[in-house]
């Protein structure tokens, strides 16, 4: 039994509405409690900021394409492989860190949970092997469904119940967490070298449109009452003028009601919105569409988004949006990996350099910041870099600093080589909002936890919640006056409690904690049709046998199973 008192810290907790008041937090074992015994260890947090552990809502940190990115980019870690003294292993990689570095770096920044954003079901075991080896942080993974043959066939006939039963089966087989959709229909079209750029482009052979896939999967997700909503990477990513596609897709959620027991209110999470908020007709007359998109999102309460902030680094893009990576490769001519996964999905990987001297990349940087700054409800807008697509997650402290300091981001904006062009193509220069620590806590803790259906135990500091706590060397009364100081404070926590154990102290890893793998076990009525279809597809079209498909529970360390009962639905 271990007990702690975190004394005199400035607490920021949107769950309880605490906005920086000095308050003691009590920890007993792995929980936050009302009080502890007199023998409790005291952690002096005076002059420091106390928040819940942060939750990453969307990052590519484990699995086949991440690893392909790792090992086809030796140059990404040739000068960047090192070991710090102590209990840690060798860490390496800038844009695609190794699993060890991934766990340590998230923990050093105060994160206790990360969602792997795209798991091809056929490769689920690989995702879990990496999650298994990633230290400290809790993780979960979202299987991709938007181009799955079962889904396309069921939804063509609007069979929501079958769709739901199949989703439940896949979640169980893959130890998955929810419903991820990447370029619905477009990735299946890519198997023939084609794409679906609008939500009304028909998918070759399957005779269905992206709009129908999105609508159907949203319905199936709510039919099951999963903790997380459908998680959508929209069609037409990264192209000028795509904000109309974005708005059209978001409108599909109008009138859809969230139905679940987890306190989740959204029915659609739209991810890395930065890549989907462009106006103009080409890269010459490219303009930001962030205002238009966020005006809509702000009005629609059943939507959540994450930003996908460009960090202006050399990075490695990777997505299940196969046709997009092909397109990107034809633009930058750097090395290209593509993997089409039978019956399910595809993925591409291309290194990318967001050169700040280029007006387009600098504008993308501005669009990402605009999205967060236009967000009226920080509980529905989360900060991501779509790691590693728009930049590595290790750049979060810098993104926070840009958002929290108008001066810092204007310094960056005004020193771009093509500053004039960026300023005229975006509206960032006119925004004076600075994100507060309280808002940041909503955007990185309480918000993501609620969006993922984890708000009962995570994302806040209320007694009874899990003791995942980050303490930063930031005194809100004397908030750091320069960007680099803010960055430094967020890069290295003073303390990180994970499940009530101190895992990081002044940026140094002191304990590997006990990492958990979260997955959702959804129970549905027995569905003979779906089980017959599964058997049939494995017999005829898959290259593995049905009995060798599932990921056994032994792959999920300290599994945290969230049960959902949809048998009455």
């Amino acid at each position, binding site marked *: 039994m271990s007990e702690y008192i975190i004394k005199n810290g400035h607490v920021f907790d949107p769950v309880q509405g605490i906005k920086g008041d000095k308050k003691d937090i009590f920890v007993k074992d792995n929980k936050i409690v009302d009080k502890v015994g007199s023998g409790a260890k005291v952690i002096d947090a005076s002059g420091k900021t106390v928040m819940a552990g942060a939750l990453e809502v969307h990052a590519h940190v*484990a699995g*086949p394409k*991440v*690893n*392909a990115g*790792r*090992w*086809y*980019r*030796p140059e*990404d*870690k*040739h000068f960047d*492989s*090192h*070991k710090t003294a102590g209990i840690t*292993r*060798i860490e*390496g*990689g800038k844009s*695609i860190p*190794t*699993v*060890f570095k991934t766990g340590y770096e998230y923990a050093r920044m105060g994160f206790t949970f990360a969602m792997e954003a795209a798991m091809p079901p*056929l*490769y689920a*075991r*690989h995702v879990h*092997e990496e999650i298994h*080896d990633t230290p400290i942080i809790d993780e979960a993974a979202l299987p991709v469904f938007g181009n799955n*043959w079962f889904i396309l066939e069921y939804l063509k006939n609007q069979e929501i119940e079958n769709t739901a039963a199949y989703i439940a089966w896949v979640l169980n087989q893959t130890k998955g967490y929810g419903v991820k959709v990447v370029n619905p229909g477009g990735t299946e079209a*890519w*198997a*023939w*070298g084609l794409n679906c750029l609008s939500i009304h482009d028909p998918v070759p*052979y399957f005779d269905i449109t992206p709009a129908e896939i999105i609508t159907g999967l949203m319905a199936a997700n709510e039919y099951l009452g999963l903790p997380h909503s459908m998680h959508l990477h929209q069609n037409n990513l990264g192209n000028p003028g795509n904000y109309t596609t974005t708005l059209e897709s978001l409108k599909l959620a109008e009138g859809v009601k969230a139905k679940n027991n987890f306190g989740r209110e959204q029915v659609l999470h739209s991810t890395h919105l930065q890549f989907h908020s462009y106006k103009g007709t080409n890269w010459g007359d490219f303009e930001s569409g962030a205002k238009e998109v966020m005006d809509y999102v702000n009005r629609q309460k059943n939507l959540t988004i994450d930003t996908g902030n460009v960090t202006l680094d050399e990075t490695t893009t990777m997505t299940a949006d196969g046709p997009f990576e*092909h397109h990107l*490769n*034809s633009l930058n001519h*750097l*090395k*290209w*990996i*593509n*993997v*089409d*996964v*039978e*019956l399910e999905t*595809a993925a591409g*990987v*291309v290194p990318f350099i967001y050169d700040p001297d280029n007006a387009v990349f600098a504008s993308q940087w501005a669009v990402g910041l605009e999205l967060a700054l236009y967000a009226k409800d920080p509980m529905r807008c989360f900060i991501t870099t779509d790691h590693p697509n728009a930049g590595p997650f290790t750049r979060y402290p810098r993104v926070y600093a840009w958002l929290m300091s108008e001066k810092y981001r204007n310094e960056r904006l005004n020193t771009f080589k093509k500053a004039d062009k960026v300023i005229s193509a975006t509206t960032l220069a006119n925004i004076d909002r600075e994100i507060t620590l309280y808002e940041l806590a909503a955007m990185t803790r309480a918000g993501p936890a609620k969006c993922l259906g984890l708000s009962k135990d995570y994302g806040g500091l209320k007694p009874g919640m899990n003791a995942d706590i980050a303490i930063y060397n930031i005194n809100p009364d004397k908030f750091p006056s320069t960007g680099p100081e803010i960055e430094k404070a967020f890069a290295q926590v003073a303390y990180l409690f994970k499940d009530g154990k101190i895992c990081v102290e002044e940026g140094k890893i002191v304990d590997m904690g006990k990492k958990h793998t979260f997955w959702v076990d959804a129970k549905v009525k027995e569905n003979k049709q779906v089980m017959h279809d599964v058997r049939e597809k494995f017999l*005829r*079209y898959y*290259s*593995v*046998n049905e*009995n*060798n498909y599932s990921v*056994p529970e032994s792959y999920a360390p300290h599994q945290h199973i969230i049960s959902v009962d949809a048998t009455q639905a």
Partner: protein
Amino acid sequence: MPKEVTDVICPFCGTLCDDLIVTVSDDNKTILGVKNACAIGAEKFNHQRLPGRVKRPRMRQADGTYKEITYDEAIDWTANMLVKSRKTLMYGWASTSCQAMSVGHDIAEKVGGIVDNCATVCHGSSLIAIEDVGVPSCTLGEVKNRADRVIFWGCNPAHAHPRHMSRYSIFPRGFFTVKGHKGRKIYTVDCRYTDTAKCSDEFIQVQQGYDYELLNAFRTAARGEVLPDTVGGVPKEKIYEIVEDLKTCRFGIIFFGMGLTHTMGRNHNIDIAINLTRDMNDYTKFAIMAMRGHWNVTGSGQVLGWQYGFPYAVDLSRRDQARHQTGETTSVDLLNRSEVEACFYIATDPGAHFPIDAMKSSAKKPTVTVDPHINCTTEISDIHIPVAMVGVEVGGCAYRMDNVPIETRKVVDPPEGMLTDEELLTKINHRVDELLAKGGA
């Protein structure tokens, strides 16, 4: 009553067939029969029950004979060797499970090992090429369901991956390929008229060592440029004809093998083939795949990838960083240059598969070999530690040639008291910890 174990995974080649049926004796000790496997896979299972299998570690004596020792003695000797050596080659890993590899890497990080796998003499060239130019690829099921053009370039699945053609590439009927072989056009490019070529619709005989030039000619032809009359012995008319055929297919795939990775130019033969594939994607859908040999050599690359960021030849000798440079940290080069002080071989047989000059260098160093059976390497090692056969006597994760992970199955018990790779490595790891705590390094 004998019983049948179904959906068994074949631990021989990178095809990783997962539909074997193995009949096992009532006491779980003996394999009585294997169904669905190719000749090689069947032999692997049959080999399990051969009499005379070594069941305990053996140490070479001064007179050249081997004497049985206990596991504890072998573990202690190995740990001491690892701790003492300033730089150790830890080679193999292709025929063991990912779980065992993970333990091995932990040891390597502590003792300063260089972890290299069988890719180093196999598809290492392909991995270099992928590092240089990427790889547009797909899973094998995509080939089965969609491919209407299949090219085997410098590979001979009829011999090396016997069930590949029937499961994935030539004969199967898939979703969009209901006609099976009839709906596909198969090309084989090789310097010999192989058995694979005999199954193909067209055989292109390239002069040995001229693959790079021929691939360059394909790319040049695809751009409509002029070619010399023949390239690598192939007339230009043929080249133009094939390129046109490939451009107009629906889904094409190139499978390539040692014919490209072992010949002059090595990695460049692959990177130009990959670039041809990339070019073809401007016209249609095209993919390329390495015909990986050992059943889990891909897995070793994956585990090294997520732990250190490199697919093979990972140099942890400094213990505070991971480095990778093929030509420097690759096994054959390390041995050629005598750049290591000890050798630890696991789940492989470099004695049979490395050039003899490399093995002469190896034989001069303290050597431990971990392998279920006697082979050419165990007989030049100081210690041979037998272990259970992974994929037969113990399960564990493996990766197919298209990187799809499949859990291998245990079908029979290992001989009494025999350790698995993972158990053995865990014990060595503990012993290394003890020695290091005592200031052994």
